[in-house]
């Protein structure tokens, strides 16, 4: 009973927090966009700008509501948003939600693959590194992690692109499916082939953080009192690592991994740009350049939701796995 009540309370709290967060994000990003130097009409017209008379421009501006003061526009937009209407994307001429939906599916596989790979490899490398602290293995893993942690994603992307796509020709140079085909025509094999390099790039970078974090936690666990007691009982280093340290390191690592979903989003924007991968990240950049305010704000709100969901999952998993929290029935 207590357990059930606390769960309901937990959900209510989370929902309240989410609503406050959404309101804040919507307001701030709207303010930011309204300060953008990009004129949506100019951006929309592009090269056609020379053929359009000032009168015609005014008609477009009026149709988009650009003649109204920004505060009024904000409230118009917000009230539509609450009703679930995200508006029309100006560059795709499609409802914002359907654009996000399509692009997200493409991005999702990229992000999911990168996230899973970096999580697993990062954790394993971190545990090994921490268990054999100061060994050659630890030093090489740390060197790799520190290098990757301080390397920009787009740069790694370009290097890999140069090596694997251009020089070796193993992977395609761009896109999520072969150029000239529609997404429906592409086979699964072709899609995976196009996915490999961007996902690899994101994982290479993503491994760094989880490795360094896991390494610290493992070292801490290996020097803990319970590790000393295990050693006194005759347990070897590897035994201590697997029987004792692993459990204590896994929890914070899982939390970190779920909390890092936000960064994954940021990384995807850069990687997709380099690989011309038509996912949500690339769409964000296009929407920004071409003044597609409804789409840009829609993506911002969607990503807020996505990151929030990641963090909430981390919280829930912690509670489900850690006996210290589970057995006492305390949620948050």
């Amino acid at each position, binding site marked *: 009973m207590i357990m059930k009540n606390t769960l309901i309370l937990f959900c209510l709290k989370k929902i309240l927090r989410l609503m406050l967060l959404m309101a804040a994000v919507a307001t701030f990003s709207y303010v930011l966009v309204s300060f953008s130097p990009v004129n949506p009409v100019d951006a929309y017209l592009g090269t056609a700008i020379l053929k359009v008379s000032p009168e015609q421009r005014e008609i477009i501006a009026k149709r988009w509501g650009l003649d109204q003061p920004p505060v009024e526009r904000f409230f118009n937009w917000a009230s539509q948003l609450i009703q679930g209407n995200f508006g029309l994307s100006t560059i795709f001429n499609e409802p914002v939600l359907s654009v996000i939906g399509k692009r997200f599916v493409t991005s999702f596989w990229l992000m999911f693959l990168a996230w899973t790979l970096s999580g697993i490899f990062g954790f394993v490398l971190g545990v090994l590194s921490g268990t054999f602290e100061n060994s050659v293995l630890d030093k090489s893993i740390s060197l790799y992690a520190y290098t990757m942690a301080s390397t920009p994603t787009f740069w790694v992307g370009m290097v890999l692109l140069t090596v694997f796509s251009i020089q070796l020709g193993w992977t395609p140079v761009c896109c999520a499916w072969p150029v000239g085909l529609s997404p429906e025509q592409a086979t699964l094999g072709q899609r995976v082939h196009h996915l490999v390099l961007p996902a690899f790039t994101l994982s290479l970078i993503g491994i760094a953080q989880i490795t360094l974090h896991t390494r610290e936690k493992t070292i801490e666990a290996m020097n*803990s*009192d*319970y590790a*000393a*007691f*295990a*050693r*006194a*009982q*005759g*347990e070897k280093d590897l035994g201590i690592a697997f*029987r*004792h340290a692993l*459990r*204590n390191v896994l*929890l914070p690592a899982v939390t970190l991994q779920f909390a890092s979903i936000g960064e994954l989003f940021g990384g995807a924007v850069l990687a997709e740009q380099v690989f011309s991968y038509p996912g949500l990240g690339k769409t964000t950049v296009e929407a920004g350049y071409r003044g597609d305010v409804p789409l840009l704000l829609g993506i911002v709100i969607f990503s807020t939701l996505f990151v929030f969901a990641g963090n909430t999952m981390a919280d829930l998993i912690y509670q489900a796995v*850690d*006996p*210290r929290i589970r*057995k006492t029935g305390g949620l948050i």
Partner: protein
Amino acid sequence: MLDIKSLSIGFSSYSFGLKKHTVLAIRSLDLSVSKKEVLAVVGQSGAGKSLLAHALLGILPRNASLSGDLTFKGKKLTPKDMALLRGREIALIPQSMTYLNPLLKVGVQIARAAELSGVSPKASWKATLEALRRYRLEEKIARRFPFQLSGGMARRILTATATIGKADLILADEPTNGLDQATAGETLGHLRGLADAGKAVLLITHDIEAALSIADRVTVFCGGVTVEEARASDFNGSGKLRHPYSRALWDALPGRGFVKSLPARSPISSSGGCPFIFFCEKSTPLCEGSLPGIKNLNQGCVRCHHA
């Protein structure tokens, strides 16, 4: 069972300019304990008592260096032997609950200790339940996590874990730390029971009164040096104690009305002299210059130029 002669433990560290320094944490430690006996090692915090336990188990940090003669069951102990003996023949009863893995059920931890000491994995669970019964713990305790235990239960679990492997030498490191009178008494009772059952118990503590209640002999430790070895009965205020430091410790007990106040911690002398010179009334230039040797006196030992 165990015989230690002039053991010293140093820690090396690097300061600016990569100059290597060695700090001696234990300068000269001598003690011996035989079976059916409880030997208490008493001294103030910082005297290097816990290091002794870690040294015997060979689990000192990597930058530690050890020298001296260690003999266990008549055989010289090398670091290699220690790795083989720990858990099987020498067991540690640690000082607090933090020595249990917080995320592992206590039964699993005891069973693992049993396996490491040579019990077959099949029999280890049975052995665990037996160990719990021996310490008057219910079977269901085995399925609890450490945070679900009371302080007294945790002590019994730690003792059960350490003694499951039939080790002959038990090292108890500050076993009464932070316990209430009743639980501390119970824990000490268990240690006495282990000694009576034929094991050798090394009780490392700063709590002299607790130590005296079960110990046969007492080794007094000051600033990294053994200064006296006495029978527990010598601590009775009749002036049988041999070293001025032991007398000062005894006089500083609450029951004796805090007659003398001792410094918070005895500095580890670097000059090589007696560690107690700064506070000793009898100190002479001789005490400052050289560390006295061990002398036998009244069925005990003392390390003092004036004894």
